[in-house]
């Protein structure tokens, strides 16, 4: 191969690669704005512009709590405002626990108040739920045939040791809420796992985006909230909620 041909091939490959990267770059860049526009377009019932955004947020939060008055089954209230997670029924929050730490997508914190109102003025229903916790730790026991057999039967109670677990909720509007158990590690291990988590987030985002590009579909940004809770509270909350829980989110 001649040197000029190699040079041309390099230029061609370079142009194609830069083109691909640039298109992906633009997709990522506009993806949050697309989410924002979609969220804004949904049930915009009133023009709340020019009203103080803190007041609109307060209105959103009280409206979403008002909706819980109708909820017969147990629901979850995540309030990043006072760093707490509570469960309640019919408007009464009967158990509250403190959030150890949380991480919120910058898109959510930069939402315009009217979009916040549109999306969070009522409890959110989740379409996909994944958890590493067993919902009901049922142990099957076959009835003994007589008193002697019954005396020999020993059923050990469920373990009261709660390992770090995680729950992922995904809403129809693309919002992801991840509740994780607190892991007790040294500072160095914590720093390492934090870096690892950040890297895995970036990697998964890039992977999703590449997958979307391969299937010729636009990349969709999925805003998420990561919350760290005490392990016992995490299991208690998961088991308290129904299989299709409603969640009030305030931030």
């Amino acid at each position, binding site marked *: 191969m001649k040197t000029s041909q190699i040079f041309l091939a390099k230029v061609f490959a370079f142009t194609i690669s830069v083109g691909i990267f640039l298109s992906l770059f633009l997709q990522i860049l506009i993806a949050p704005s697309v989410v924002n526009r979609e969220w804004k377009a949904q049930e915009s019932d009133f023009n709340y512009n*020019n009203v103080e955004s803190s007041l609109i947020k307060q209105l959103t939060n009280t409206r979403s709590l008002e909706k819980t*008055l109708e909820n*017969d089954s147990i629901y979850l209230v995540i309030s990043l405002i006072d760093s707490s997670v509570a469960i309640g029924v019919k408007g009464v929050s*009967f158990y509250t626990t403190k959030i150890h730490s949380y991480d919120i997508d*910058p898109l959510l914190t930069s939402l315009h108040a009217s979009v916040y109102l549109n999306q969070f003025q009522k409890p959110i229903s989740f379409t996909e739920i994944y958890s590493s916790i067993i919902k009901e730790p*049922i142990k099957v026991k076959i009835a*003994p045939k007589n008193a002697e057999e*019954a005396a020999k039967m020993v059923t050990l109670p469920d373990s009261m040791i709660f390992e770090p677990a995680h729950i992922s909720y995904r809403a129809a509007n693309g919002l992801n809420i991840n509740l994780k158990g607190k892991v007790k590690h040294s500072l160095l291990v914590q720093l390492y796992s934090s870096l690892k988590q950040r890297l895995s987030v970036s990697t998964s985002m890039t992977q999703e985006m590449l997958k979307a590009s391969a299937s010729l579909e636009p990349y969709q940004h999925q805003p998420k909230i990561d919350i760290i809770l005490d392990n016992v509270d995490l299991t208690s909350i998961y088991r308290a909620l129904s299989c299709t829980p409603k969640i009030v989110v305030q931030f």
Partner: protein
Amino acid sequence: MKKLKDIGLFYSLLFMAGLTLLLLASAISTSIVDIGDKRLSRSQSDSLTKVIQLEISTIKKRLRNAQPVSAYLVINSTANEFYLNKDSTTLKRDKCSTGSYVMLKNGDLQQWIFKTPKGEFKILNKRKNPVWKKPDWAFVEEGLPVPSPNHPSRFEYGVLGDYALGLGDGYLIHGTIYQRFIGLPVTHGCIRLNDENLELIYKTMPVGAKVYLF
């Protein structure tokens, strides 16, 4: 060979540059949102502010009215703990025992799951020196034949402690002679307390008081 190395280096650098670009995009993209909207006039926005404030205060009043007026009990069946609350104060927090999640199977036709229900309940009745009328499963579990509904062998005295508070559907808050198991999930769905806590709850909670089980 040198050419191959050059090409490898070139593509590695290109890939790294591309990846950096993508990560950079993901970092800055989420802070860009569209906020363009129509504006209201000053007087319109003032009157809207008043409407919003009124709505907030009305909702807050509704929410306040939904709060329990008397003392209420919260049972955490995962941690096997109870919280006796009044208003926003916890009067007592201690261990209790709740359902074991055992599924008792008697052939193909009968089965029971011993779990504590979840949700909002009320104290429907209160009894002193309660007598336990053993249900069918208690005999099946012991490998004994099930007697007729009112057979004397169904009635046991003293096993439920000094008091019992009924929640409906046979679920009770009661005491136990097996105090060492308090704090473990060992019951058939009822809530077991030690003598001291049972007395406190019996005396603090009136009939109609709310009980939240989760």
